[in-house]
């Protein structure tokens, strides 16, 4: 199926199964055999594969080689911050003192873990300019849910249950409206202006007694710093609403601006974006929630407090606690601890100076791409961009080559595709986020590839239209997959 040398992956586990093979030898029972329960409770149809250990290793290794990844390819997927994931972070998370502690062990047996969490809360509060931090949320969208539930709880506590509307920009990630709906809000769309900022007139119209708040991504998904942001926060607050910040794009702002200073009331961070924890093919993430003092009593449980005076961290140790008016427990335990260890490690190895050079170089790299490609790819918002640049393939479209085609052709050049067709307000959008961890040679090679593809769109549009040509599979029939869902292997096949 794939290039020479790799082992065949066409057979699934159940198809490689050979009766009698084992992948693990289990220990002998060292206690007397006990009576089994009623036979009706016991199963006789455990359909799991029988594969030897080398068989498992060979299969999964070969599968891994079908993937693009940060370690193997440039991965400029906009809004996803595909930066280098430091190996030391993983090693620290796997220390037995972290990986092998049980979440319900008493605090005296987990003081090291609690102290780490306490310090991380402090770091994230400092970076965002926020007073309260909860690490309990397990992904970005989970953080959003917690944050908007906190807004709801705040309004209800103020006897303001009539605030049912959540205003969300037309450029927002889908998680924003989905989270607002899960927290019981009615979503209203907030338009962007010609500069890509929140349209202040539109906001004024929405800013009434039924407005619960707005959810703003800063920089926006257009890769732009909203020049109206301070005014946006003022208008919302004046109307009695609250401002939620989606921290997906925080890589641009590390050390450059604090969302708390700008007027945000509650935000979430994506540690699997900004703070370098690996995406793992779609998770795990961590979505800590940071908030202003007025919302801190509502934070998701638990948070870590010091046992000293006023919850300060001291030699007297640390505990898990439930904020006074908490929206409740939002996950099984205390957050995705292994991810939190990685983020802590990252922040410590960067320190004050390093944090700022992350944002500086992320923004520099994005603007370098913007400048080098603007003559051949249409730039709908012609401004200095932040950590990512959004082009449109409108000019290529005139020659019958879509944004999708350009993106797919990049795969043939050995680059992962940018984010396509998002944000929704840009036609044929190609959203490119290089991150700070790519070097100039890589950026130059990527620029050259996009210039070559532009040329190909003139000379051989049909070839581009059918790209990719060199990947393990070509374009897949997604319509067939959705019309006739085949979601698991079945023996009859």
């Amino acid at each position, binding site marked *: 199926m794939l290039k020479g040398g790799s082992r065949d992956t066409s057979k699934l586990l159940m198809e490689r199964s050979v009766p009698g093979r084992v992948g693990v030898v289990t220990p002998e029972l060292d206690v007397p055999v006990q009576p089994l329960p009623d036979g009706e409770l016991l199963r006789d149809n455990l359909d799991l594969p029988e594969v030897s250990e080398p068989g498992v290793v060979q299969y999964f290794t070969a599968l891994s080689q079908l993937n693009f990844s940060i370690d193997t390819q440039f991965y400029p997927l906009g809004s996803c911050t595909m930066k280098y994931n430091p190996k030391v972070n993983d090693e620290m998370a796997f220390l037995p003192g972290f990986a092998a502690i049980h979440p319900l062990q008493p605090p005296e047996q987990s003081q090291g873990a609690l102290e780490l969490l306490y310090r991380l809360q402090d770091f994230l509060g400092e970076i965002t300019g926020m007073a309260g931090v909860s690490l309990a949320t397990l992904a970005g969208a989970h953080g959003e849910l917690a944050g908007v539930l906190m807004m709801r709880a705040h309004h209800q506590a103020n006897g303001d249950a009539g605030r049912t509307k959540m205003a969300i920009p037309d450029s927002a990630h889908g998680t924003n409206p989905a989270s607002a709906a899960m927290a019981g809000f009615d979503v209203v769309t907030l338009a962007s202006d010609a500069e890509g900022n929140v349209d202040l007139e539109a906001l004024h119209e929405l800013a009434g007694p039924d407005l619960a708040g707005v959810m703003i991504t800063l920089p926006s998904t257009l890769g732009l710093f909203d020049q109206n942001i301070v005014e946006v926060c003022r208008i919302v607050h004046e109307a009695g609403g609250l401002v939620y910040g989606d921290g997906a794009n925080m890589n641009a702002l590390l050390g450059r601006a604090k969302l708390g200073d700008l007027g945000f009331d509650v935000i979430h961070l994506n540690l699997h974006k900004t703070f370098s924890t690996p995406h793992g093919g779609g998770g795990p993430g961590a979505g800590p929630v940071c908030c202003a003092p007025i919302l801190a009593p509502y934070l998701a449980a638990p948070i870590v407090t010091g046992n000293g005076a006023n919850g300060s961290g001291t030699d007297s140790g640390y505990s898990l606690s439930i904020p006074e008016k908490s929206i409740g427990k939002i996950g099984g335990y205390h957050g995705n601890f292994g991810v939190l260890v990685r983020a802590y490690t990252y922040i410590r190895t960067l320190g004050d100076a390093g944090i700022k050079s992350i944002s500086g170089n992320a923004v520099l790299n994005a603007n370098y791409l913007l400048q080098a490609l603007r003559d051949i790819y249409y730039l709908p918002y012609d401004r200095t961009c932040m950590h990512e640049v959004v082009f449109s393939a409108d000019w290529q479209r005139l020659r019958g080559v879509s944004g999708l085609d350009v993106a797919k052709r990049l795969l043939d050049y050995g680059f992962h595709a940018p984010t396509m067709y998002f944000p929704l307000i840009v036609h044929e959008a190609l959203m490119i986020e290089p991150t700070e961890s790519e070097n100039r040679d890589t950026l130059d090679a990527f620029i050259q590839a996009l210039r070559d593809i532009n040329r190909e769109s003139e000379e051989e549009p049909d070839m581009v239209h059918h790209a990719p040509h060199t990947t393990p599979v070509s374009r897949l029939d*997604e*319509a067939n997959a*959705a*019309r*006739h869902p085949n979601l698991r292997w079945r023996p009859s096949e």
Partner: protein
Amino acid sequence: MSPDDRKYTQEHEWAKLEDTDARLVLVGITEFAQDELGDIVYFDLPAAGTEVVHMEKMGEVESVKAVSDLFSPVTGKIEAVNEELVNHPELVNDDPFGNGWIMKVTISDLSELDGLMTSTEYDEYVGGN
């Protein structure tokens, strides 16, 4: 060119009178709509017997990466839905004005059809888009 034997809505549904005495109307979506949607993968439709109301949501149509509401062009009771669409939603891509019909409705008031666009009006409406 849309067929002139039926009427059209601004939401790209069509309604074709099949049987005047029985007030039976065939309902579907237009060629323009199926083209905009791309490969259609699923219809979420009410069961026969359900009442539908002119220009109120009657169901959903899904393509691979989009969901759109379907609006009923007429008020009345659903007599039948096109069962073929369960396994072959692509019929609507292939033949939106024919085999890709969506449902049959007994219209409450035949004059409701007069309020819909003619094929000429609809083609102009779409051409202007």
